[in-house]
């Protein structure tokens, strides 16, 4: 499903202790083709999460519009499994709301449990899982609704390198056969290069798209591949100045 973002601006009203308004996004334009995997990288606080929230309709943009038809799935930056539901009920949550039959729900849940290698934890509660397993459940829960567009906000940021690499592999496989449109936010440039068809670099706040890198490497890609390293270095170069900018602003903020 195609996704078009036109001239999005967003500023947050300042809080009541006399702060001025925060300009989070400025003139963001982006077109994502059907089945495309787009990665967003940028300094902390530049508005990446805000952009995803606007696309998802959870936050209203100050101006601009979003064109997208099709079902959206969202994997959040923070853990969002429902602690009162077992793994299988977390995964089946969306289908239950759609009032699908029990058999149908079980079938879909079992399929995604298998896909994310969680079959043994079907009956567990979220607090009994490791961080990586929780994120896999969150992925399965999002995929179970068969979204056309997948919004992923640093879904693997809190995980160790080994688990992360395993999940890259799983995600690439899932994406290759399901051909979903994905927008993937990350701080990790290599991660972006391994996963994306395109990597977009954001400026420091207010976030704007500064530069775009097309990644034409064959899949599946390995994070230690020399080409991946080369492109990552180029992107890092681009990012450095923006991160420096963001840090300067933070220091200013503290004073």
């Amino acid at each position, binding site marked *: 499903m195609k996704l078009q973002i036109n001239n999005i601006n967003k500023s947050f009203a300042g809080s009541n202790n006399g702060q001025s308004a925060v300009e989070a996004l400025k003139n963001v334009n982006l077109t994502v083709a059907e089945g495309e995997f787009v990665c967003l990288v940028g300094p902390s606080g530049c508005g990446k999460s805000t952009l995803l929230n606007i696309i998802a309709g*959870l936050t209203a943009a100050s101006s601009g519009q979003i064109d997208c038809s099709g079902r959206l799935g*969202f994997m*959040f930056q923070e853990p*969002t499994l*429902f602690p*009162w539901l077992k793994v299988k009920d977390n995964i089946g*949550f969306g289908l239950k*709301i759609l009032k699908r039959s029990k058999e149908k729900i079980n079938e879909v849940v079992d399929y995604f449990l298998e896909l994310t290698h969680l079959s043994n934890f079907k009956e567990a*509660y*979220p607090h009994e899982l490791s961080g990586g397993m929780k994120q896999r459940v969150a992925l399965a829960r999002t995929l179970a609704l068969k979204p056309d567009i997948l919004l992923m906000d640093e879904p693997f940021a809190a995980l160790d390198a080994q688990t992360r690499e395993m999940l890259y592999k799983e995600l690439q496989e899932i994406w290759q056969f399901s051909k979903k449109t994905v927008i993937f936010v990350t701080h990790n440039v290599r991660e972006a290069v391994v996963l994306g068809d395109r990597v977009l670099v954001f400026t420091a706040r207010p976030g704007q798209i500064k530069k775009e890198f097309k990644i034409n490497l064959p899949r599946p890609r390995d994070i230690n591949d020399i080409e991946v390293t080369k492109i990552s270095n180029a992107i890092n170069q681009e990012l450095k100045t923006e991160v420096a900018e963001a840090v300067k602003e933070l220091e200013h903020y503290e004073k």
Partner: protein
Amino acid sequence: MKNKLIRLAKPLTFIACLILLWQILYWLKIWPKWLFPSPADVWLTLVKGFANHTFIWGILISLKRIFIGFGVSIIIGTLLGFLIAKIKLLRETVDPIILGLQTLPSICWLPLALLWFGLNEKAIIFVVLMGTVLSLTISVKGAVLNIPPILINAGKMLGADGLNLYRYILIPAILPSYLTGLKHGWSFAWRSLMSGEMLFISVGLGQLLMFGRELNDMAQVMAVMLVIIVIGVIFDQLIFGKIEKNLRAKWGL
């Protein structure tokens, strides 16, 4: 089973020691017998009270009142709590008033209740209601406001909106704090009921307690106090405490 016995062994031994101490104090005859009965006197009064059914009726009538008062409080408190949490206007108007009224000890509602309803059941149930409903409202409101917004967003992205959002996200999300609130609410209700029953003529445990005083029967006073404590413990620890503990374990809290 064996573990349970071991876990209970310490508190039970302690209680046995207390009773022994009580008995020794009684033997020392520091206070006159009618002010300080022996454990056996209290036990006999208990047995007699249950045998001639006065205690049983007292318990049943008090429980009936608390079930009605507490039940109505749960309904009103839960609805009001949700409304205040969800409607900003109510948060700015009703909420401060509720916080203010909550500081009023529930028994202070008794004169008003007696004038409104007369000397009857309704008055005492009203006192129980006023002693419980505000604290429940406040705890439900707090619980709803404390739900992490990200969980609500996750629910929305998975298709839960409108009533589904309440049914599948908001209500389950507040359950642990709701149960804690119910537990507190129950103890408020129980206290309100006892003070209400003691202050005006009405069958019930509170009145049995006052009878003991009027007859100068300290054994009766202590026996009824024991019954009140045991009922409190049963509901507080065994019923609400158990449910709460199981739920918290399930959530990993």
